């Protein structure tokens, strides 16, 4: 069982590396020198993180509803106490939201 796990782990690592390689190839970073790669990755990473931070900081309500949509099992309140939620959101068992 243990060798199978390690084999799967190796496969997973190779898969991630392959995905990274595809990303490099498609954005044409692959043919650049190492310092250019670092530069571009840092640039892209900072842009992406900025967008994510802005999303979470300024529109938390929508973020929560998207989160609940994707992971319906982690809905907080399944009872009627959800009606007293300050944001005005209500979550029920199936994970859909209703704005009141």
């Amino acid at each position: 069982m243990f060798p199978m796990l390690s084999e799967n782990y190796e496969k997973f690592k190779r898969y991630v590396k392959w995905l990274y390689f595809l990303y490099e190839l498609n954005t044409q970073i692959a043919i650049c020198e190492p310092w250019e790669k670092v530069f571009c990755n840092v640039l892209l990473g900072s842009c992406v993180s900025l967008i994510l931070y802005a999303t979470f900081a300024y529109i938390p309500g929508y973020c929560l509803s998207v989160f609940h949509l994707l992971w319906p099992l982690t809905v907080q309140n399944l009872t009627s106490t959800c009606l007293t939620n300050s944001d005005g959101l209500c979550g029920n068992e199936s994970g859909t939201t209703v704005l009141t």
Partner: protein
Amino acid sequence: MGNFDGVGTVLKRGSDIENNGANGKLPTNGAAIEKPSLDEPEQKEILLNQQKFSAPAYTEIRTRRCTVKAAAEAKSPTSTNYHPDKKTIFNGAIFGKHQEECKPNQAEGKLSPELEHHQKTSFEEVPLHTACLTYLGFYLLMILGYINQLLFVPKVATEKNREGYVALYDAFESFYSRYVYRRVKDCWNRPICSVPGDELTLKDRVTDDYGWSFKFTGTETRCLNLGSYNYLGFAAAAGRCADESEERARNDGLAYCSSRCELGDNEQLHELESLTARYFGVEDAINHASIILGLRLSGATIKVFKHNNMRDLERVLREGICYGNPKKGGTPWNKIMVVVEGIFSMEGSIVRLPEIIALKKKYKAYLYLDEAHSVGAMGSHGRGVTDYFNVNPKEVDILMGTFTKSFGSAGGYLAGSKKLIDFLRTNSHAHCYAGSISPPIAQQILTSMKTIMGEDGSDTGRKKILQLARNTRYFRRRLAQLGVITYGHEDSPVVPMLVYLFSKIGAVVRTLTTRHIAVVGAGFPATPIMEGRIRFCLSAAHTKEQLDYALEVIDEIGDDLGLKYSRKPRDANPIEY
């Protein structure tokens, strides 16, 4: 590009070699060499190969199927026994078995030319996400290039004390070649050290400073040759053509050192010219060692029409006739000449000859057909596109072509009516000033032309033409089945496979080299900026095993690098040869 630190590993026939970084260092762990009892020369070869494959330009892309395939291969033998490294001796071409059943390379003629052209040509649209990525990628490369230019000094010659003179380097061209082309420069101008027949030997070179300079590693790679314009397989160092050329060189020397008008004229060249005229079915032909006359030398006004678009051509013709010469106040033009190519070498499409001839007759224009690639490669007798469409070659005013591609020699020819050729003989620059063709080269043309026509007594020529047609159809259909986008006509032996992105051109060429296949990549400015392509040139010298091997490798690479852009439905049935 090859900075796969830890990503790239090379599978070398069973032994796994871990790649440590991209600076040409030999791997430190001894896990690569499994058997300790290897003798000296083999160990040296392995070391050299490791050095070759561990340099950045040659790091093989780890294909996902590699490991699976290696495991499968260990259990059962492979389906194709072919690998370019295996030293099998192929003397000349080996022909397929069922020669009588395949149809010749000819336009069918059942539908109208327009409908047939639309049916057989495919120019699939680029997927939107790829187009966006290509543009964004180029912007990124330009920005990086500008930053590079600001911060670092390029390793090129700089001008000194040139104030007041025209600059030595053009601004955009030098920028592009230094900061975009230079990154993948190792894929072009690769030195070879064997005759480029169906297989070829590449000299390996590596670059330590990302394309500014190259060094030879001392090793060579034997590759399947899908890049040479060797359509009928006459590029061989052995065989009848080579023997006769050698004999001729011994008897007549290597050069006449004089032009045709003075002392360079001889019987052999007269024989060559009359043979060329007979080959094409025209009255007369003239040939030169170099034809330098161009449209610019003639001083004509040039108007462009859209690629293979008959309505656009008609529009341009009508405008020319209606409005006349604007520089002379609207008087009619003396002559209107339509200049087209037989096979467009970048697109792989064939000119729509019957329709152009109809238009030419309607508007009383002249037609100049440049058959550089198509002579020998198209038509059931190898005479070019006039043969392919069953059109009388006397209807084309000027037929021009080269002997470098299908005939395996050098030089070119012009064929047409006697009046035209006599005019050219008296008035052309090359006839008076350029040296005449060297005797062994002319002999090679003579022998190969006679072979194609069948006048040498064997049916080698006919077999080669049929073999090329069969190879073309098989290869194109298999590629369409794989799901890659190819451009062009079904019957043209030039097969461009679209990869769109610049880095993908580099990746594909390099990976194919490590898998022992030599191809040519083409990008901007030879092609439109969006359409980077890999061009396969098929040959009558390729056997089915070689094509199968190539297609297997292309399949794997297509999966790994994401080249299968086609959205057309794929034929599920296995394709017969």
